[in-house]
């Protein structure tokens, strides 16, 4: 497959008078291939939006190479801009313009056919509200309008930064269906989101970033498999006896009041046979697979610190509070 987005060694540092120097992205790499629905995950302030802005020529990187649809960015970005639809962080529009006028002006400025306006308004569910002023729109409606603006060009590559922001559950589902239908039509989608379940449902590939660095990437299944500890949840009538039997058989068992968790077992038959041979009958045997949320939290340092407020932007941890530093870069071949 051909690379649609390639980023290598991206670095961006912001300098402000008040806060001094802040590294937003550091030696960051990313590869999105044609046809992928690629999830881009990271905690607040981890550098996702900065990466997308750099890719789209909105911020100037300090170092690194980037290309979009084969054109180096930002130098040759104008050559492919007509094939890239993008929304970057909560997009804003002039409140006094209607959605229809907003899209018409964008289409006019960008050389897209203005006849597309009605089509995309319908596509994002704003057909009947397109004549209203944007200032009367809810956050979710503005988000739909932003997606509509990205769709105006019939993009080959769609970059969506937090498209589900402000959407209600029905809206999130509609956005998911829309993304799937676009992907089915051959559009490559790069999707940044905090809603991990959504990413897991929609995306086939994922890149996880923490404190400006890539910490995991690859097909979603393989990233998850990399964290699979082959755990099984076991329920039996005699928990203590079962734990002893499994322990004697050399299995790693963790006891809970209502269940056992057995770790490191590839084939569950071992568990049921071991218990059955001792007259202990399994009532429930469930695989405990890692989901994107647990992987994300583990990689970005959000695990096991439920009671401690996690600080945005990877501020240096204070003693005994929390450690956000991710030293592991888990790579899974695509």
């Amino acid at each position, binding site marked *: 497959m051909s690379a649609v987005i390639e980023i290598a060694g991206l670095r961006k540092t912001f300098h402000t008078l008040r806060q001094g120097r802040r590294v937003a992205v550091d030696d960051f790499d990313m590869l999105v291939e044609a046809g992928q629905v690629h999830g881009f995950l990271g905690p607040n302030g981890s550098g996702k939006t900065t990466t997308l802005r750099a890719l789209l*020529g*909105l911020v100037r990187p300090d170092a690194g190479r980037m290309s979009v649809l084969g054109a180096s960015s930002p130098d040759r970005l104008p050559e492919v801009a007509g094939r890239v639809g993008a929304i*970057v962080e909560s997009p*804003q*529009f002039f409140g*006094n*313009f209607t959605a229809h006028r907003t899209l018409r002006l*964008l289409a*006019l*400025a960008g050389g897209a056919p203005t006849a597309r306006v009605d089509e995309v308004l319908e596509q994002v569910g704003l057909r009947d509200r397109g004549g209203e002023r944007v200032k009367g729109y809810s956050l979710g409606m503005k988000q739909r309008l932003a997606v509509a603006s990205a769709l105006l060009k019939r993009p080959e590559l769609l970059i969506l930064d937090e498209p589900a922001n402000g959407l209600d559950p029905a809206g999130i589902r509609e956005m998911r269906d829309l993304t799937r239908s676009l992907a089915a039509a051959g559009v490559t989608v790069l999707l940044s989101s905090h809603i991990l379940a959504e990413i897991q449902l929609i995306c086939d590939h994922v890149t996880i970033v923490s404190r400006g660095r890539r910490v995991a990437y690859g097909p979603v299944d393989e990233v998850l498999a990399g964290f699979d500890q082959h755990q099984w949840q076991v329920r039996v009538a005699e928990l203590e006896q079962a734990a002893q039997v499994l322990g004697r058989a050399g299995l790693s068992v963790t006891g809970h009041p209502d269940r056992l968790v057995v770790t490191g077992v590839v084939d569950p038959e071992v568990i049921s046979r071991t218990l059955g041979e001792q007259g202990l009958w399994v009532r429930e045997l469930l695989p405990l697979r890692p989901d994107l949320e647990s992987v994300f939290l583990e990689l970005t340092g959000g695990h096991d610190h439920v009671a401690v407020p996690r600080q945005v932007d990877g501020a240096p941890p204070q003693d005994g509070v929390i450690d956000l530093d991710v030293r592991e870069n888990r790579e899974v071949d695509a």
Partner: protein
Amino acid sequence: MNLVRAELERLAARRFVQLMVVLLAVAFAVTVLTTLGGSHRPTPVELSRAQSQAADEVRRMELAHDRCLRIKAGSLTPDENDYLPRECSQIDPAQSERLPTASDYLSGVFVFAKEAEPLLYFLIAFLALFGFLVGASYIGADLNSGGVVNLLLWRPRRPTVFATKLGTLLGGLLGLSVLASVAYLGAFWLIGQASGLTGRMDGEFWASLGAIWVRGLVLVLLTAALGFAVATLGRHTSAALGTVAAYLVVWELGARLVFQILEVARPDRYMLSSYLAAWLAGEVRLWDDSVCRPGISGFCDGSYTLTWGAGLVVLLGLTAALVAAAFTAFRRRDLV
């Protein structure tokens, strides 16, 4: 071309622009109606009396000049009411820029030739304010609201976007200014025709009015470019307004006071307002206090002149520098 069309439409659709155009129309209508209501076509008797008064005044000026010459020649002794300039030519009616005319003695009669200049200055002042505010808000609101980011996602060529926005602003403003001035002066000319006098509108009158008009239009465009540039540098409309307010308070008022205390020579030449007045009026005559200090005996002329040329150089230089700085900032700036 599409970008220009889109930007022109965006500019015209902005509430602020529409509000300012309505304000201009209201001010225009009020001025026209009050002028129309306060003017009448002079009767032959009024006209004859005014012509006679104007002739009397010219005669009085000639006598005063003649008397000055005779006093200077020593053939006449001056009395306490005589005004004696250094050169009698200064009060020579033949050399006067403008002699009294009948229109000066007509009460309640609108005379276009007499009123056109101040009316045009009022229009230029309004359009300059309009240009500055619209220029600042056009880019300021766009930068602040994310409009520029949206546009750059479609057209990732910053120099083109900047130049198109500025060009559209100046082009649109020029078109509006030309239309507004033609409509404005045309309406008052009609009032003069129908309910007053048009006055003496010779080639000299039109040349003078035309020069003010052209200089006024240039000033309108410069103020719009200034507002646009400062708002771009400050990323906000209020940056432009704040800069102007700060300049007026700190420099035009504060620094002027300091210059006076320190007795700096010709402080007005450091003030933008002097160059603005020089450009608009053609030239401005200023007074330098430091020249005629106590102890100097005899006649002392502490005046000096700033010409429209100096005004243009300063205003154009300042605008060009700020636009260049804004262009550089816009091209290199991180849009976060």
